[in-house]
């Protein structure tokens, strides 16, 4: 069964901490994405990557960065966590043309206190 695995289901971090959210896919997909999901706002794209060492800003990149050193792994980094980054974070991957849509991980619920 193909999977997108997010390393943590729940995280609680303090304001100002550096936070790493990890995502690994086993489908040899070229494309990987990070979204955040908030009530009433749906899924909003933070960053995406179409290849190793490549990254593109999404709709809400402020306060975030990403790393893609290997094809299967895409990390989301909160350089200095703030309370407004409390959210559900969803990682997804897709093939080179996005033809088959995205496969999502189960999400990481991050709370910043």
């Amino acid at each position: 069964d193909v999977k997108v695995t997010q390393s943590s289901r729940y995280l609680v971090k303090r304001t100002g901490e550096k936070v790493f959210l990890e995502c690994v896919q086993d489908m040899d997909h070229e494309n990987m994405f990070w979204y955040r999901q908030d009530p009433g706002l749906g899924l909003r794209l933070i960053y995406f990557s179409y290849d190793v060492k490549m990254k593109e800003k999404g709709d809400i990149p402020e306060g975030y960065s990403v790393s893609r050193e290997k094809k299967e792994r895409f990390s989301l980094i909160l350089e200095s966590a703030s309370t407004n980054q409390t959210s559900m974070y969803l990682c997804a991957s897709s093939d080179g043309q996005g033809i088959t849509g995205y496969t999502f991980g189960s999400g990481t619920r991050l709370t910043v206190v």
Partner: protein
Amino acid sequence: GESVGLHLPTLSVQEGDNSIINCAYSNSASDYFIWYKQESGKGPQFIIDIRSNMDKRQGQRVTVLLNKTVKHLSLQIAATQPGDSAVYFCAEISPGNTPLVFGKGTRLSVIA
């Protein structure tokens, strides 16, 4: 910017009835559309997709209809079951391998 939206944030249906979830999209250049289902505590899961050269596609108990004239997408679920209770998202892709744009979601509640 252009975005995908949904007409109704919540929908309650009786078990066994048919459900219709609607979606309006504004980017006329979008050529691929997907419906996702998200159950509580899980990530969105693919349900069905449709390309812009089609106006209808059927799956198991689900049908997606695309009306490009009015830029409207709908998901029909036949004989709705309690397990269908979830949030449903429509999403669109424009040509050029651009990222999916998601609607805000509709919560479907099935009344037993």
